[in-house]
């Protein structure tokens, strides 16, 4: 078993095939999109492969340590960050092939015109715990 992160980008991913911003969709198309995402997560729970799904607000900021006794420095939010994460899903599957298959299915979520978005999702394996047997 291996866990994979399916990462969805607002910006920074290669352009989707059906590349229309959500605010240009009809309300019904938006509803259909979210329904698809919910159904997909529910299906994965049924197959015993679902771990987590979260969506991120596109606000936010950069924060860093600024020295002992000083408050952290903050910067942003930036309107035009190159790469912006929209959200993720974490799955626990038997093979990488299965992770790719599920990411493909998630990328088929309907968008403008009710047609699949074909958006690019980033698929990243988790680092695991060390195996017990090493030699």
């Amino acid at each position: 078993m291996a866990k994979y992160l399916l990462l969805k980008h607002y910006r920074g991913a290669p352009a989707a095939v059906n590349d229309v911003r959500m605010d240009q969709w009809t309300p019904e198309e938006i509803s259909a999109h979210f329904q698809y995402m919910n159904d997909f997560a529910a299906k994965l729970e049924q197959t015993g492969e679902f771990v987590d799904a979260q969506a991120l607000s596109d606000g936010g900021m950069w924060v860093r340590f600024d020295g002992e006794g000083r408050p952290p420095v903050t910067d942003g939010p930036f309107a035009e960050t190159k790469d912006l994460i929209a959200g993720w899903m974490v799955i626990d599957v038997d093979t990488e092939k299965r992770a790719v298959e599920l990411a493909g299915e998630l990328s088929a979520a309907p968008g403008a015109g009710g047609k699949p978005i074909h958006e690019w999702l980033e698929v990243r394996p988790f680092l695991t715990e060390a195996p017990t047997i090493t030699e």
Partner: protein
Amino acid sequence: MDELLLRSLTPGVLGVLVRRGADFAAAEDAVQDALVEALRVWPHDPPRDPRAWLVTVAWRRFLDATRAEAARRRREDVVDAEPAPGPATGVDDTLQLYFLCAHPSLTPSSAVALTLRAVGGLTTRQIARAYLVPEATMAQRISRAKRAVARVRFDTPGDVATVLRVLYLVFNEGYSGDVDLTAEAIRLTRQLATAIDHPEVAGLLALMLLTSARRAARTAPDGSLVPLAEQDRGRWDTASIAEGVEVLQAALARDQLGEFQAQAAIAALHADARTAEETDWVQIVEWYDELVRVTDSPVVRLNRAVAVGEADGPRAGLAALAELDDALPRYAAVAAHLHERDGDLATAARLYAEAARKAPDLAERDHLTRRAARLNGRRTS
């Protein structure tokens, strides 16, 4: 309360229910309910006969569930009376359970989950925590697994090899949580070894005992990995090693070599050496040759190259490595190690860094990064 006792009774209780005519899926649910109930009640009200208590509660749960189901279907043909207990078996039932839970129609993760629950007597929550997935996901994984084997007859003989692969997975990929999956894998393999006399079952048990004997020495206090050569051998568990060696010798005497016996033999040779320098690498290479013959696995050939590097020098190890596909997992790590031993520290450092980037687990990545950093030689000022 003795949770291990409770868990060890699980397969027998499940066997009783199945023999009384309950189908496997319903019986397994009922036993799980009884386990959860036992965990709640036993601490303040321990039963006189734990097994009888579990059978009674599980059977009642099964009847309740069957009645509820029948009521839903508006059927009248519910079995109300408790039937006479079936033949008093135990060991056979346990073995059948192992086969069923490792049935070839199951994916590895389903087989692992089902084995831990039905044979191991763990709760769904414990299994979910151990594998870091939500409880609902694990519950679904288990019920799907049960549906997948619903049509398999309980008394169909199975393949020991599939059971061993499942137990190996539990042992090798045990994660975290409140259950020690390494210990659980040993317990389940030990139990299997009492149910069936098979040299590879013994081989796997020996491998587990010999490997887990090194556990305390394997991690530094900061959690980082300590390689075999640098471990404090005084911290190895000698009782576990002695048992592993004994189990292995009895298995090897039967002259039916398999991959687990060969792996255990290698682990035993490491256990035999009081210091890393005393390791009998020549014999280890011979066992790797056997292992290659039995498994023909590229990963085994990779490990063999390490052993050859120790037995015949790093150049010989590099020569053995050159015959292998450099896309193999851990290839770069092995190459780095052999180049370091050969004195080519620049190449070793570069390869350690490359291996770290490709490492599949955090501990190994950190370990390889430290190796690269040490060879790169920057000092903290």
